[in-house]
C-alpha cells in the first residue's frame, strides 16, 4: 500500500502544482530507488519488462540500448536521463566531482538539444539520449527530490512525445499547470504506442495553436480558399508577361489588360487574314467610342519597307492624319492603312511593343511616337509604325 499512496501523492503533486514542493520530497528520499521504480512501473505499465530490469540494476550495462528502437524504451531512457539531470542539478549527493560536473554540462546540453527540437525527431536524437543515458545511469542512483524529479519526468515525457510524434508544434517548455495534461497525454500515447497526434480534447496541452492555423472550421475553409486563389494567381503570373507585381489587385489589372490585348490581337490578325484591303469603317463602327481604331497591314507591301524612327516622314504623316481626321475619320483611316499604320492608345501600344519584342514574333518592330493632341485626336493616341514580318522570318515549321 505504501507505493500506492506515494504514487497517489505524486499524482496529486502533479495536479496541484502549488503543493509539489515539500510534500513528497521526503518519502522518495527514504526509499529512493524503489519508489521511483514503482512509480515508473505504474506509469509505464505497458512497456516491456526488459527496460525495467535495466533501471533496476543500473550497474549492469544495458545491452540492447542502441539496437532497441522501442518507443517505450526510449521514453524510459529519456526520462531516466532527465531524472539524473535534475538530480545533479538539485545539488544533492554526487554532483560535486568534476566528472559529474562535466557530465552535468553534457547532460544539460543534451537536454537543451532535445528540448529545442520541435519537429521531425530523427533517430540520432534518440541515439544520443540512449548513449548518454547509459553513461549516466551508472552514475547516480539516488532518487531526487520529488517535485523536481516529477518535473524532469514530465519534461522527459513531453520531449519524448514530441520526438515520437514528430509534431511541428513549437516546443513550449511545459509549465507546471500543463503537467497533468501532458501526463494524461503521455499515458495515452504510451498506451496507444505511436499515435501521431494527441487527443484534440486536451485543450491545455495546446497552449497555442500552430502558427497561422486556427481551429475554427470557417477560418480553415477561408484559408483553403485563399490558398487556392493564390495558387491560381501564381499560375496566371507565369502566363502573363510583366508579372512582377506582388499586389493581387495590380496583378489582376495586368491580367485584364493582357486578356483585352490578346482579344484585340486576334481581331486584328483575323482582319488581316482577309488578305486584301481591310475594311476600316466597319471596324470603326464596331470599335465603339473610337478609342481604338486599327487598320490591318493590308497586303503588307506598302508597309514592308517602312523603317521606324524616320522622324521627318513620321511628322509629315502625323500632320496629314490630323488634317484628315478633321474631315472624315474613314479617309484618315484609309490614309493610315495605305501607309501600313494604325492608331491605338498609348497603353496598349506599349503593351504590344514590349510583348512583341519578347514574344515569339521578334520581327515586329514598333516605333512609338507621341502625338500631342493635334487636332481632334485625344492626347492619348499615338501613331504606331508596325513593320510587317519580312520574308526572312522562317516559317517556323507549320
Amino acid at each position: 500500500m505504501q507505493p500506492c499512496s506515494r504514487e497517489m501523492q505524486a499524482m496529486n503533486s502533479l495536479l496541484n502544482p502549488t503543493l509539489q514542493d515539500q510534500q513528497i520530497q521526503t518519502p522518495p528520499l527514504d526509499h529512493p530507488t524503489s519508489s521511483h521504480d514503482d512509480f515508473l512501473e505504474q506509469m509505464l505499465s505497458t512497456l516491456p519488462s526488459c527496460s525495467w530490469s535495466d533501471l533496476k540494476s543500473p550497474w549492469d550495462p544495458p545491452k540492447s540500448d542502441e539496437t532497441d528502437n522501442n518507443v517505450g524504451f526510449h521514453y524510459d531512457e529519456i526520462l531516466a536521463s532527465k531524472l539524473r539531470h535534475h538530480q545533479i542539478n538539485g545539488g544533492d549527493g554526487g554532483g560535486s566531482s568534476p566528472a559529474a560536473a562535466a557530465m552535468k554540462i553534457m547532460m544539460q546540453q543534451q537536454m537543451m538539444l532535445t528540448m529545442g527540437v520541435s519537429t521531425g525527431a530523427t533517430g540520432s536524437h534518440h541515439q544520443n539520449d540512449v548513449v548518454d543515458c547509459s553513461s549516466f545511469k551508472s552514475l547516480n542512483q539516488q532518487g531526487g527530490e520529488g517535485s523536481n524529479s516529477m518535473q524532469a519526468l514530465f519534461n522527459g515525457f513531453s520531449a519524448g512525445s514530441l520526438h515520437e510524434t514528430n509534431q511541428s508544434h513549437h516546443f513550449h517548455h511545459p509549465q507546471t499547470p500543463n503537467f497533468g495534461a501532458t501526463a494524461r497525454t503521455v499515458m495515452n500515447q504510451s498506451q496507444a504506442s505511436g499515435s501521431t497526434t494527441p487527443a484534440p480534447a486536451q485543450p491545455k496541452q495546446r497552449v497555442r495553436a500552430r502558427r497561422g492555423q486556427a481551429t475554427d472550421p470557417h477560418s480553415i475553409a477561408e484559408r483553403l480558399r485563399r490558398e487556392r486563389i493564390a495558387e491560381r494567381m501564381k499560375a496566371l503570373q507565369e502566363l502573363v508577361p510583366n508579372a512582377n507585381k506582388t499586389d493581387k489587385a495590380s496583378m489582376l489589372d495586368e491580367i485584364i489588360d493582357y486578356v483585352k490585348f490578346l482579344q484585340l490581337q486576334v481581331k486584328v490578325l483575323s482582319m488581316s487574314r482577309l488578305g486584301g484591303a481591310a475594311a476600316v469603317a466597319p471596324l470603326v463602327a464596331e470599335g465603339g467610342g473610337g478609342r481604338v481604331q486599327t487598320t490591318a497591314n493590308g497586303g503588307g507591301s506598302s508597309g514592308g519597307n517602312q523603317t521606324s524612327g524616320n522622324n521627318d516622314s513620321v511628322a509629315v504623316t502625323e500632320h496629314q492624319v490630323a488634317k484628315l481626321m478633321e474631315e472624315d475619320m474613314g479617309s484618315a483611316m484609309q490614309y493610315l492603312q495605305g501607309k501600313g499604320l494604325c492608331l491605338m492608345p498609348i497603353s496598349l501600344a506599349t503593351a504590344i511593343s514590349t510583348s512583341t519584342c519578347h514574344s515569339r514574333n521578334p520581327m515586329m518592330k514598333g516605333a512609338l511616337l507621341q502625338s500631342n493632341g493635334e487636332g481632334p485626336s485625344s492626347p492619348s493616341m499615338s501613331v504606331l509604325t508596325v513593320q510587317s514580318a519580312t520574308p526572312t522570318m522562317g516559317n517556323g515549321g507549320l
Partner: protein
Amino acid sequence: MNPSSLKSRFTTRFLRALTKINAHKPISSSSPGPGEIFQRYRRIKVAADKSMAYSVRSRRTWSRATLWRLRTRSPRSRLATHARRSWVKTRSTRAASHGKEKKEDGGTVEAEELRELVPGGEAMDLCNLLDETAHYIKCLTTQLDILDRQECTSREL
C-alpha cells in the same frame, strides 16, 4: 508537334474552316464594299472562335459559353437569350452571395471586369474564374500563334 495537343487540334479545325470560307467566297481583287468585308471578317472571327471552342469541347466553361453564344446568334435569338439570361442570373446570384459571405476578397472590381472579358465568366466565383482565365489566355495565345504563322507563310508566298 504533339498530335493531340491543343495547338494541333485548333490548327486543323481552323484551316478547315478557312478553306471552307475561301471556297464559299473567293477573294475579290477589287476592294469590296465595307459590308462585305465586314461580313467576311465576322465569318473568319467566328471560325476562329468556333474552332478554338470546339478544340476544347465542353471541358471549360468559357468554351461552353462561346459555343452557346455562337449557336444562338442566329434567328431564334429571343428565346435563346432569354433562357440564357435566366440561367446566368441564377448562377450569378449564387456566386454573388457566395462572394458576399467572404467579402474580403479585395479584388471584386477587377473580378467583375474579368468576368466580362472571359466569356461565360459571369457566373463563377473567383477561384474558378482564375482557372478559366488561365486556360483562356493559353487558348488565345495559341490562336494568335497560329494566325501569326499563317500570316507569315502567306506573305512569303
